[in-house]
């Protein structure tokens, strides 16, 4: 993309849906009411692990105002987001696997009647011994102790092992070898809007589901499978979402049940989950134990790294297959690693399933790596930033595990935060109780492969031109607040040279919009943006041809700008966009075009190489300055500097907003948020009061620096900003705490009790379980790789 004089891109415009959100006009799923609608509730298991002997629903069904009751027998087909690990049921058929696992659903005239009916359902459970920790899961190897029956080794959902480059040789060449262990506690998305879905089964045997989903296409597929109905008869509409962060990316029980109950009752059926239910639905950050060993030269040059991760997956697979890979794959993207070994295992436990939360599987290893490097630098007597500067990855290179890095602004990101924070004046020089810490990270702008294997595009955009000059953009993407609707409008406005206000956008409706895979993996800007530009290109060809004939100017001398088609050489030769559209429609018929985007082909070919590749990596650095009270252990963050290589600031306001939101969410994870359970399998703190998250009082001043590297694969050079900026903040907090008080906390959340224990010398090293990993998949850099770099 050579264009640099943009009229829309790079401008701090309002989001296209901002007004609706500031006036109360935006209608979220729970704001929809339909005639004859009924309200549904799920009966959830009170036991973490039990076999269902029998369920009796007769009494519930006979309660006045109850329209329908269903159980597992009504929806027995298994589903799950990853095709190879479909292990969920809409309602448990034979077993429940966590407290909160749904076993029956009731639709009634009101929520309160539905709740009363739930109490009339009798379930006879045979209680089984629950598994509640990684260690317990690894020890429960007997067939009788299994949570699931489909997986090969009892309670191991997935174990992986890779060796890239000459790992043994790397460690042999190292002059010093360092080892550390870490723990990252699980936490949840806590989107302000609870999950909501409305099913309607209407005339012509067509089913519609409105849902607060982030992934309408995957939901569409899953519903077709579970309901045994062709996708052509199902319409999924992603309603404006009140926050996702990954928590609305799985197909869910309540969505399947809303559809089924609508079919049974002949009425629209709404499920609006309670806040407590949202905690149990979860799919959030995995608790991960980690072990890391790194060999370095005395000057700090990395020679080899060996990383192990142990993920507590909860009761179901969800995205777990991808999650376990993500805890290992991106370690190689920020720093040059000549040899790298990764072993990871995700276990089943009797807790709510973990899944993707902002950063999916990568905040945990980033936490470990960045603290580990900080410790190594200290032992080598180096500034931790100098240690990193020795081995930054570079643009247009391929990592030891076969990941292609295109643009790379990591060095500039480091320079920016170091200068703005006055790092050199502060590091190891602030008084006791005050400290400063640094960390860096890398993330993907969209997964390189789709969730289910297929050769079709990842994103499709359709554009319709109206003779009045109106433009409608259709795309299957779903706006979860990040501004994906706006991105489409900005791209199309830029291409046609019109005011964004002339453009309408229709998204996330499987009846109306071409497929986009969804709002996950920070993929939307790059993929929908490119698809939109391609669709515009096809229409521009027709429009410029028309204008060329009318103005008698060669098409390649024409530009579309300010609502006009204009000659570059003779700027007075113009025609309005509307005239041009009319002329083109007269000549070519109704005007419409489609565009699509598929990421570049994966470079490496080893088994497991599908997780990690992306069209473009982003890079982020963060400096955190904080105070810690030695008497109370309380931490107060004074300021955070964050520099993010976003490729191009598509709309700087939105890019900053994503960055600031990521920093905030990272602080919650670093200091307070935790998804924790009692021995009974009950959530300890399933409310917004007890599950502590930062308010305006705990969120510090955030200074955001956007670094632009103009990536060849990004639309106008843009990359992601929604997830990457979360990553460096958490370890930067831990590193700053060490600078402040001289103790290391190798886990999150870093709560006052842990700080005090550490100050008193009672903080225990994180223990990591032993496990026999499978033999590694070995791959040498360059093996089977066809290098085609865009520059």
């Amino acid at each position, binding site marked *: 993309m050579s264009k640099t004089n943009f009229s829309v891109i790079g401008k701090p415009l309002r989001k296209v849906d901002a007004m609706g959100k500031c006036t109360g006009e935006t209608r979220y799923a729970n704001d929809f009411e339909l005639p004859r609608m009924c309200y549904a509730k799920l009966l959830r298991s009170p036991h973490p692990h039990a076999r269902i002997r029998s369920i009796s629903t007769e009494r519930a069904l006979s309660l006045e105002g109850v329209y329908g009751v269903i159980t597992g027998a009504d929806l027995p087909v298994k589903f799950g987001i990853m095709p190879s690990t479909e292990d969920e049921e809409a309602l448990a058929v034979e077993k429940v696997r966590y407290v909160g696992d749904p076993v029956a659903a009731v639709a009634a005239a009101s929520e309160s009647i539905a709740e009363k009916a739930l109490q009339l359902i009798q379930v006879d459970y045979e209680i089984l011994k629950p598994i509640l920790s990684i260690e317990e899961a690894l020890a429960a190897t007997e067939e009788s102790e299994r949570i699931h029956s489909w997986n090969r080794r009892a309670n191991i959902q997935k174990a992986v092992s890779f060796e890239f480059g000459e790992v043994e040789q790397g460690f042999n060449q190292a002059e010093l070898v360092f080892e550390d262990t870490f723990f990252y506690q699980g936490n949840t998305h806590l989107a302000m809007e609870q999950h909501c879905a409305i099913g309607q089964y209407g005339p012509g045997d067509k089913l519609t589901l409105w849902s607060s989903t982030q992934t309408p296409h995957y939901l569409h597929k899953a519903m077709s499978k579970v309901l045994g109905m062709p996708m052509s008869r199902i319409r999924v509409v992603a309603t404006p979402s009140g926050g996702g962060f990954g928590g609305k990316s799985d197909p869910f029980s309540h969505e399947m049940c809303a559809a089924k109950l609508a079919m049974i009752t002949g009425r629209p059926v709404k499920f609006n989950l309670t806040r407590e239910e949202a905690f149990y639905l979860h799919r959030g950050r995995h608790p991960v134990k980690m072990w890391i060993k790194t060999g370095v030269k005395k000057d700090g040059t990395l020679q080899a790294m060996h990383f192990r991760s142990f993920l507590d997956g909860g009761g179901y697979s969800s995205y777990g297959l991808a999650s376990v890979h993500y805890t290992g794959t991106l370690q190689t993207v920020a720093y040059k690693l000549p040899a790298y070994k990764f072993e990871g295992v995700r276990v089943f436990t009797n807790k709510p399933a973990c899944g993707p939360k902002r950063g999916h599987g990568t905040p945990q290893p980033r936490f470990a790596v960045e603290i580990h490097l900080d410790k190594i630098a200290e032992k080598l007597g180096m500034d931790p930033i100098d240690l990193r500067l020795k081995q930054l990855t570079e643009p247009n290179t391929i990592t030891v595990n076969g990941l292609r890095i295109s643009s790379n602004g990591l060095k500039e990101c480091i320079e920016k935060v170091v200068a703005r924070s006055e790092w050199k004046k502060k590091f190891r020089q602030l008084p006791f109780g005050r400290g400063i810490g640094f960390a860096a990270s890398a993330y993907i702008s969209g997964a390189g492969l789709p969730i289910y294997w297929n050769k079709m595009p990842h994103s499709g955009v359709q554009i319709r031109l109206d003779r009045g000059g109106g433009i409608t953009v259709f795309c299957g993407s779903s706006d979860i607040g990040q501004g994906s609707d706006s991105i489409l409008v900005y791209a199309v406005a830029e291409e046609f040279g019109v005011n964004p206000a002339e453009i309408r956008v229709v998204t996330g409706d499987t009846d109306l919009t071409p497929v986009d895979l969804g709002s996950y993996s920070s993929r939307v800007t790059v993929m929908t943006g490119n698809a939109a530009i391609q669709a515009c290109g096809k229409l521009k060809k027709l429009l410029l041809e028309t204008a060329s004939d009318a103005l008698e100017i060669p098409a390649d001398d024409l530009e579309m700008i300010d609502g006009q088609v204009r000659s570059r050489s003779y700027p007075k030769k113009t025609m309005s966009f509307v005239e041009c559209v009319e002329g083109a429609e007269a000549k070519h018929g109704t005007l419409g075009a489609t565009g699509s985007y598929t990421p570049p082909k994966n470079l490496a070919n080893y088994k497991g190489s599908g997780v990690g590749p992306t069209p473009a990596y982003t890079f982020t650095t963060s400096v955190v300055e904080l105070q810690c009270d030695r008497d109370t252990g309380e931490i107060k963050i004074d300021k955070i500097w964050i520099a993010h290589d976003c490729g191009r600031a598509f709309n700087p306001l939105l890019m900053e*907003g994503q960055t600031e939101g990521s920093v905030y969410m990272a602080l919650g994870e670093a200091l307070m948020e935790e998804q924790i359970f009692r021995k009974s399998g009950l959530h300890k703190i399933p409310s917004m009061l007890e599950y502590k998250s930062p308010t305006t009082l705990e969120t510090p001043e955030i200074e955001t620096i956007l670094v632009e590297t103009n990536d060849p694969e990004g639309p106008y050079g843009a990359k992601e900003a929604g997830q990457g900026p979360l990553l460096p903040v958490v370890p930067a907090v831990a590193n700053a705490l060490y600078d402040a008080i001289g103790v290391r906390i190798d886990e999150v959340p870093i709560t006052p009790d842990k700080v005090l224990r550490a100050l008193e010398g009672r903080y225990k090293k994180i223990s990591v379980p032993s496990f026999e990993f499978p033999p590694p998949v070995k791959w040498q850099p360059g093996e089977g790789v066809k290098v085609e770099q865009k520059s």
Partner: protein
Amino acid sequence: MRSSVQVKMDVNGEAVEATFAPYKTLLEVLREELNLTGTKHGCELGECGACAVLVDGEPQLSCLVLALECEGRSIETVEGMGEGAALHPLQAAFADLGAAQCGYCTPGILLTAKALLDNNPHPSREEIREALAGNLCRCTGYTKILEAVELVAKGEEI
């Protein structure tokens, strides 16, 4: 217990007579009886601030207020913030500065900020932080929200 009660209140400057079951909260009556769905529910336990509305000019969590108690009260929701088609300056500032991402917390924050500015037109950033401390937002990191409120506060000085 009576199955329904009738309450007269002023909602967004209009006299409203609503009939509802006596246990209904103000949040439920606004959303379900008056179809004012701009007021959001985030927890229904008074923990998140998403349902904040103004009752006689003071921010209240509508999920904790019995609608029955609102006889004769004046209620302001996000739908009533503007003057006709014109936006309230806070609404415009939130849109201009990107202070609404998913937008779910926005109505509650707008009204809480309005109450602050009505009482204290030129608050410091710390005062804005204090006023909004009961309104959770998971998207923005609060930065753009604080900036938007400050922008309006400064705008009035000019």
